[in-house]
């Protein structure tokens, strides 16, 4: 058994509620799971006279991954910014872990943001800081002792498989590596909610797949609720049809859902013009008769 795998096993045993539950039973056995991680109620937002979100309502349950699909300008990134409190809605309510954050001040939001990990489109790494200091950022801000910081940073960089890059500066990294450092930075401190803003945009297919695998690992092994904003259908395929397990050898393996009855804990939302056009599983997405959705899935029929 490789050393890293032992460690992963140990971390899983330690973390409260981090047991690798069978996804099928993940939602029925815990009372506090009734409170959704994220809830939107009739959220409306417009810039000047352009409506970005129009009475948007959805929930992300604990441990669930919600894929937000949609074309550019459909309000996907805005949704994420609202959850972080980087923007405020015109009307409607937003809840994070049952807490109404709609009227929160910036200082109150700081407290909420500690629970949330955010992966930005291009990584949004701090150019002036090395990879180590980028990943350690949150811990340094909290004044955590340096030995603990280093341990946690190395653990996170191992999780994204980038321990070698620890002393590099962001401008020395490739696009995919930047994205992975961004993920490591977001995961420091073990947030139970993680948001991905088009994490695979502009990446080659194998790297994009790696990013998706990280999201799957978080969902199935770390019990993280997440929002995964994307417009790429292969991301949807990976996230909805595969799951991560720890096999007998203690290694993490990705298995295909196949024909077995198995509920991968991922739902899809399709946004269009700030409204939900579709909400449900990937199977029903593929069966949807809507021409826009069919065009989106198969990449034809430019919207009019």
């Amino acid at each position, binding site marked *: 058994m490789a050393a890293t795998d032992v460690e992963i096993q140990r971390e899983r045993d330690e973390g409260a509620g981090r047991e690798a539950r069978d996804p099928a039973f993940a939602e029925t056995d815990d009372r506090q799971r009734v409170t959704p991680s994220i809830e939107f109620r009739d959220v409306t937002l417009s810039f000047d006279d352009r409506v970005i979100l129009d009475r948007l309502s959805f929930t992300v349950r604990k441990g669930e991954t919600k894929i937000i699909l949609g074309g550019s300008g459909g309000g996907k990134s805005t949704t994420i910014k609202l959850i972080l409190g*980087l923007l405020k809605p015109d009307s409607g309510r937003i809840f994070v872990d049952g807490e109404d954050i709609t009227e929160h001040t910036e200082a109150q939001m700081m407290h909420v943001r500690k629970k949330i990990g955010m992966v930005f489109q291009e990584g949004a790494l701090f150019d002036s800081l090395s990879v180590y200091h980028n990943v350690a*950022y949150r811990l340094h801000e909290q*004044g955590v002792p340096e030995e603990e910081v280093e341990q946690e940073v190395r653990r996170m960089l191992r999780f994204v498989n980038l321990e070698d890059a620890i002393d590099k500066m962001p401008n020395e990294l490739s696009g995919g590596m930047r994205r992975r450092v961004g993920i490591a930075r977001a995961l420091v401190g073990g947030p139970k909610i993680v948001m991905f803003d088009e994490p695979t945009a502009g990446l080659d297919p194998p790297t994009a797949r790696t990013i998706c695998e990280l999201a799957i690992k978080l969902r199935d092994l770390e019990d993280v609720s997440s929002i995964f904003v994307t417009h790429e259908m292969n991301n949807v395929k990976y996230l909805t049809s595969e799951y991560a397990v720890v096999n007998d050898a203690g290694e993490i393996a990705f298995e295909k859902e196949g024909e077995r009855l198995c509920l991968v804990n991922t739902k899809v939302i399709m946004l269009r013009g700030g409204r939900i056009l579709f909400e449900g599983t990937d199977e029903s997405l593929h069966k949807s008769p809507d021409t826009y959705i069919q065009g989106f899935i198969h990449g034809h029929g430019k919207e009019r």
Partner: protein
Amino acid sequence: MNFALRALLEVQETALLAARAARRLFRRPSYIPEMVSQMDVIGVGSLTIILLTGFFTGGVLALQTYPTLKYYGAQDQTGRLVATALVRELGPVLSGLMVAGRVASAIAAELGSMVVSQQIDAMRALGTDPVRKLVAPRLVALVITLPLLTLISDAVGILGGWVVSTQFFGLASSSFMAAVWEGLTTDDIWGGFVKTTAFAVIIGTIACNKGLSTEGGTVGVGRSTTSAVVTTSILIIVADYFITRGLQIVLGLPV
């Protein structure tokens, strides 16, 4: 939105930013290392240009005024003229303008690119207040270093005047220095401090506000940078007039 309304809105934004930065200055965790590194970048980094502008301004003042003063037989007063002009006006204003050109552009460009590459959003998402982490240290560094830079610039300027007067025009060193000491008052020095502190606040808040309100990608960064330099430079000169007038009233200086 018309121009006047937009300008008014920007004044409001800048004032709010300054107030926020001031209020958060004393809250924990304080960013002392950031302040020190900004003082290094802003203060020590601007030293060369301040020394050069100071020296040559003093020199050119002596060069221009000595012949005229000599015409009236008052060439002994060259030191007085150079010192007073530098300490009251040229030192603060020229240092302010040089630092505005060097530092306001750098701040606006740095914060602006952090905005367009979502680093500011990332910072907020990671639980840090950008006003405290980025704005306050720059503001403090400017308020501390600009008066000191001006003091250095004044001193080097008088040296420049002395070099020209004694070496070029052959004025006695003792009469130059005597006139300098006679001409300068502590009020002049304090007035310089008041001015430069005000200029530092102008440079810091406007540059930070322009940077943080950058929109529209890399083009927007360029726009913010230009506008930060232009706005701060103009405001320094306008503010200089009003502060001078205010000081004359408060200190009861002869008009």
